[in-house]
């Protein structure tokens, strides 16, 4: 079975700082990768996903993630964070074409952006 590790449980940044949230997974085969975000009081929503093709994936709100197969990593980045990016971020992985029943989530990273 696969597993997902998110490097930081809590991250505190000032507005305009750059963001990188680490995500590593363990699985021997091809995977689909996701980043979800949960803003305070809101439902979990998809930020971006990687299924195949260009390993640099762009998502909503200026976020991007790079899939590095050799490192089993899918780190989330944003060049300049805003106060409104305060949220909890979850990395998730599922084996290719396995569907969501095998989707495994990381433990989440709480990002606090101070104005």
């Amino acid at each position, binding site marked *: 079975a696969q597993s*997902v590790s998110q490097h930081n*449980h809590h991250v505190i940044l000032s507005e305009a700082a750059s963001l990188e949230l680490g995500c590593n997974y363990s699985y021997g085969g091809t995977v689909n990768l996701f980043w979800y975000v949960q803003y305070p009081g*809101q*439902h*979990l*929503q*998809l930020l971006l*996903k990687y*299924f195949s093709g260009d390993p640099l994936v762009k998502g909503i709100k200026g976020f991007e993630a790079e899939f590095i197969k050799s490192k089993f990593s899918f780190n989330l980045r944003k060049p300049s964070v805003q106060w409104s990016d305060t949220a909890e971020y*979850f990395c998730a992985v599922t084996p290719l074409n396995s*569907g*969501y*029943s095998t*989707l495994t*989530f*990381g*433990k*989440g990273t709480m990002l606090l952006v101070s104005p």
Partner: protein
Amino acid sequence: DVKVTQSSRYLVKRTGEKVFLECVQDMDHENMFWYRQDPGLGLRLIYFSYDVKMKEKGDIPEGYSVSREKKERFSLILESASTNQTSMYLCASSSDGENSPLHFGNGTRLTVT
């Protein structure tokens, strides 16, 4: 826009009570899921369903059951609530289409006293 509606935002129940958590989606999705979300543990899959009257155990099914009598509704049942089932419960749905996204409800925060 897809809407996944969970009937209660907050629920407080006593130990031993039977608890029903309801979830309805309005997009005719085939697949529905129940997760629980706990601080420091992320999301863990409890049960899922790929079709009406069909159910499969997820990673942590113990102490739970589900019901899917209609395509749009997926209910999570705690037969005898216990304090360790105090948690945030998230319902989600998706269609069968390739690359179709997973849509989440707002969650039900259940407290068992």
